[in-house]
């Protein structure tokens, strides 16, 4: 998700609070793909920063796994770590295997995801938005040899900066894209749809209250109180608390009222 530009949410603007909002029209790093139903789907392409973040997590993981194997082999099974002995078959070679085959194996097993990509909110898809095939994932990983040249993935990184859709050579060869998956949006949808049946609020109101309650603990007390009051005044101008009621409410009461509204309380808007 690109949070590169700021947009002021009109509801919060009077309070001088700027909130980062994803705006689909803002960025070029998007691919529109025709869905099977004729309705387009939008893929948000990951940039070099997100790629590097996911790669670093995976690099640490595979290094740790390989080192853990070596440690286990040496300490627990008393195997020699000398490459010129038979023990190397069970000690050093599996560790090298874990390190070198981590990406192709995990990507194939998890269908285009690795733990690092999962943590960074990324996944590999085809240029048509589908799940990549085993062949495509193998090709993508074969070309790591070129992308990693001459060191530190320099070729791949430069390619990501200059290519359309921010892809490295492996992705071009395999016809894949690394896209961002907005887990927050999916969770938010699930939450909004769960409370929608009980609430009489409009979609805007529902989402605003849901977001405010979600961020409640992370906001400064004075700010969240001001936002809550402003929100309640907009959503129920002649609400249960009366004309001066909202201004007189303390934080706990405001929060309770927002909860009530979200889960079925009356509201004018």
């Amino acid at each position, binding site marked *: 998700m690109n949070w590169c530009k700021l947009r002021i949410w009109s509801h919060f603007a009077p309070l001088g609070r700027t909130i980062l909002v994803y705006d689909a029209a803002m960025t070029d790093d998007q691919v529109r793909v025709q*869905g099977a139903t004729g309705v387009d789907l939008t893929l948000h392409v990951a940039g070099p920063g997100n790629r590097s973040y996911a790669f670093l997590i995976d690099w640490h993981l595979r290094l740790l796994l390989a080192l853990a194997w070596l440690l286990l082999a040496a300490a627990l099974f008393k195997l020699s770590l000398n490459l010129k002995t038979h023990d190397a078959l069970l000690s050093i070679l599996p560790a090298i295997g874990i390190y070198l085959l981590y990406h192709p194996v995990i990507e194939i097993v998890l269908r285009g995801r690795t733990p690092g990509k999962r943590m960074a909110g990324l996944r590999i*898809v085809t240029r048509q938005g589908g*799940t990549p095939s085993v062949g495509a994932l193998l*090709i993508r990983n*074969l070309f790591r040899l070129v992308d990693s040249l001459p060191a530190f993935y320099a070729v791949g990184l430069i390619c990501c900066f200059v290519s359309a859709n921010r892809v490295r050579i492996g992705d*071009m*060869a395999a016809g894949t894209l690394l896209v961002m*998956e907005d887990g927050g*949006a999916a969770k938010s949808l699930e939450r909004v749809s769960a409370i929608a*049946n009980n609430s009489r609020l409009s979609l805007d109101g529902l989402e605003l209250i849901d977001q405010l309650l979600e961020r409640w603990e992370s906001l400064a007390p004075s700010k969240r109180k001001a936002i809550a009051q402003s929100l309640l005044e907009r959503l129920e101008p002649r609400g249960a608390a009366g004309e001066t009621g909202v201004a007189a409410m303390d934080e706990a009461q405001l929060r309770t009222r927002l909860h009530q509204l979200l889960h079925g309380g009356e509201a004018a808007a």
Partner: protein
Amino acid sequence: MGEQHGTREWLNARAAAWRKTAQLVPALRDRSRATLGEALDAVESYSALARDLATARQLAPRSRTTAGLETLYAQLHALISRKPPFGRSGLLSLLRERVPAAVVELRSRIVAIAALMAVSAVAGWCLIEAYPELIGLFASNAMIEQVEQGHLWTEGMINIIPSSILSISILANNIVVSVFAFCSGILFALGTFYLIALNGLLLGSAFAFVHQHGLAAALFKFIIAHGPVELSVICLAGAAGTAIGESLIRPDRGTRRDSFQACTARVTPILVVGAALLVGCGFIEGFISPDPRFGLPFRIAIGTSYWIFMLLLLSGRLFRRPLVSALEPPA
């Protein structure tokens, strides 16, 4: 007010379906197979979600609900367009159809690359015959000293490193060379030409050098068991690399990128089979080639039969579909 009411009604009507879809997607994504009912459910949900997304884009284009629907729609799209798992049928299709098709496509390139390697080998031989001191460019000092003392560098190899370890290190090295020959095709095939020519030059110069010290027969005896397939696979990888280069120079699709992608998908099966063959080569080179107990006839037999096996594999004859008579009644 009326529009807001309509939005709320729509939200209330569809919320349950979205919740169900949101639970269906992760459940199906983590499994390789789905029941027919689940698959039909997914397709129906996909259609319904497409309608909802189109509505949401109209009613609340910048809401989190729309963003959530976009995400869910993209996930479901990836799910329903997933190919079947690569199992036995996928492997058979690879060996029966895709590999032979790639070989047919690359025929002329394979011949050209083999010729390039042969010419480079002859050039290497001539170079060392004319200027023996140039062997320092191709071989290490230790190797040169050993040959000058009348011993091949391969002698006693299995006394230093166990055969199993030797095999794995050799096969890994060979696979990396093949993959490099293939991938360096991206430099408009120049990288592939360079690698193939360099390998030919090394081979020719090494043979010329050992020939000067009366060890050519010993080197031939060492490489004959694994060499034919090993060199052939490197040539195949090189041919695939040149195809990639040509797809970039003369794209046969809309764009260079499309052409590159299509060509890579067509020729990569050769590399996969080549890598499997190199595993066999590695074991032959680790267990048979350095072992003095195996005589020349046995090595020639191994080398020849493995090469024939490779030809059968690449032509698709090894896994040919059984012929079914048209007159035979169906089972």
